[in-house]
């Protein structure tokens, strides 16, 4: 079972946080230009807050999660002129009706729905609502799904499985002109002067590769994402933690190999002893021979 954390929190792996932050960072210019922003499946709002930065969002943010406490945390984390938390189960028809009425109006609106629809066993009503909203003149929707297909990840929190095949199915439901993006994982290293506290940034060469996540944008401002690409977010690896995890795994492996060898040796010994005992039990003893009658029948 892969190691994962479903909710992105301050304790999440830096790489996981970075990939989540990048999605919000991509949306951030659209959000800032809109009067309203609705984040579906907002979680604790950590990535959204990081992507929006310290400059408060001038519009009104609606942060929606199934868990009211988590939505409240998101509303507290996100710097906005007005941040409202709302607990809604997006698989529920009544909740979607509430969402539809809450988002009524013609003001420019951005809806983000990252890593959410895979949690819904019936995502069709939500997708229908999002396409309906995106048909309005000033609404833009951004959503993302994980690429489960490639890694064959079985996540107990996911009700549906996503990958390029499922994304093709979803794209066939979306309006023409939608934007589809692949999010790729990055690995690398950097050299810095040993002395001093140098800070630097570096560029990354990118090529088409297997996606870790798949993003879709549709609606009024979706085409504006094009110039923002490629978007990258690289964070320095926490090598101390990574080293601990890898060393633990290696030492565990060494321990288990040794334990297995010891068990195999003991098993071999036991089998040998058992064979010896079986042979001894089967062979006639000297005393028994003495007592056995001779073939002739004489004692």
């Amino acid at each position, binding site marked *: 079972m892969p190691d994962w954390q479903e909710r992105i929190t301050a304790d999440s792996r830096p790489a996981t946080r970075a990939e989540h932050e990048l999605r919000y960072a991509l949306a951030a210019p659209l959000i800032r230009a809109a009067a309203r922003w609705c984040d579906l499946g907002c979680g604790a709002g950590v990535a959204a807050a990081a992507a929006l930065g310290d400059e408060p969002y001038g519009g009104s943010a609606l942060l929606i999660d199934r868990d009211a406490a988590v939505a409240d945390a998101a509303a507290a984390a996100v710097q906005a002129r007005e941040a409202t938390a709302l607990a809604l189960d997006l698989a529920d028809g009544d909740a979607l009706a509430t969402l539809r009425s809450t988002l009524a109006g013609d003001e420019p609106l951005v809806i983000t729905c990252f890593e959410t629809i895979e949690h819904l066993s019936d995502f069709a009503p939500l997708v229908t609502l999002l396409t309906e909203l995106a048909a309005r003149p000033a609404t833009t929707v951004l959503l993302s799904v994980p690429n489960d297909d490639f890694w064959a990840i079985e996540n107990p929190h996911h009700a549906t499985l996503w*990958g390029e095949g*499922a994304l093709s199915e979803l794209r*066939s439901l979306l309006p023409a002109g939608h934007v589809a993006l692949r999010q790729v994982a990055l690995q690398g290293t950097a050299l810095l002067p040993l002395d001093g506290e140098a800070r630097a940034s570096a560029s990354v060469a990118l090529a088409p590769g297997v996606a870790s996540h798949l993003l879709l944008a549709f609606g009024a401002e979706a085409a504006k994402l094009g110039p923002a690409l490629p978007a990258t977010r690289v964070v320095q690896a926490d090598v101390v933690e990574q080293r601990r995890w890898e060393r633990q795994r290696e030492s565990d492996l060494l321990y288990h190999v040794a334990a297995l060898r010891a068990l195999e040796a003991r098993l071999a010994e036991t089998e040998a002893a058992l064979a010896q005992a079986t042979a001894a039990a089967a062979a006639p003893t000297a005393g028994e021979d003495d007592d056995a009658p001779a073939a002739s029948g004489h004692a």
Partner: protein
Amino acid sequence: MKVAFLLNDLQLSGGVGVVVQHARELALRHGHEVTLVLVREQEAAPWQFDGLAHLRVEGLDDARRERFDVAIATWWETVYSLYELDADRYVHFIQSLEDRFYDALSAERPAAAGVLDFPLSYVTEASWIAQTLRQARPDAPCLLVRNGIDKTVFRSPEQLDVRVGEPLRIVVEGNPQVWFKGVWPAISAVGRMREPRHLTVVTGDHSKIAPGSADAVVGPISHDEMAALYGASDVVLKLSRVEGMFGPPLEGFHMGATCVVAPVTGYDEYIEHGWNGWVVDWDDEAGTARALDLLARDRRLLTFLRANALETARTWPTWEQSGVFMAAALEKIRRDPPPPPYAGARQLAADSRMALDRQRLLMHERNEYRRLAKPALRLKRTGAWQRLKWLREHPAMQPVWTLVRPLTRKLRSKLTG
């Protein structure tokens, strides 16, 4: 939503099974009122598909009296009955480009191709069909809904059953009488193997399989039995020449069997050569046999392919997920305006013209043959010919004809060309 699926019949086939699964999902999980409309008089009792009990089945006459939100043709012939139903939207659920099933000069081929000119919305199960349709009919909505897999039947094992030191267990599935299923070349390729193997052929007609060409011949069998067979097998060998979504290897994947396949349409939806399966060339029985021998010898490679096949299967959607996409697709089709009625008219006219030209050609050929056959027909009507025929068929004359036949062979050959 009130939905009608039009079918020719409810006999056992992969295509009908897919329709029944979608209908069942729409009825049970999405609250739609679903009717299976049989457009033909039924000669045989329906196959007992799982889920059929939850669906209403009726004939075309009854369906004509109803009104539907969406009417869906599921096979090219049913498109010709589609407009007999009163519906808000007309849809063609395409599981293959079905004209390919027929010989180039058959009457069915242009008729099957011609349905793509009609003003319909499309739902299809394979990416390659969706891409083809979007090129052929850019005006028509085309939605992709991949088939799900019944994971309660094709229940993947937690861990792969690694087999070493046994014959390579191969399954060949399909009706050998259907030319595009490639059953004969598959059996022939296995026959050319050098390594130990065990071949099971799954077919409804055992009489067509030559004795000794397979170790076991089974079928027709239920899905549960098929799943068990795949679970006990290493390789699904499938050399089809026409496929839509290409389901059998995927079912095998779910049970931990890899596949050896030709690069038929639909294979690349989930099969990756050297990763979870082995793709061989067209018409290459020797090469196919070598690939199978390789898998029989190299158990490390076989285990690698089988393990990855199982992983591929784990992420394939269930029928529940597939049903969500079908529900969303039908909802979108109903919500959006219908396709423009005249967009396919140009192609329809061209296809009709082509059919007319073809018919004219056939008539011309027929008349030409008739003219050439005239002397022979005149000869056949003469009294001498009738007497000769009587003699030819008389039992007492048979020994004489047996003696004469080799002497007249050359003459007959010259006469008949």
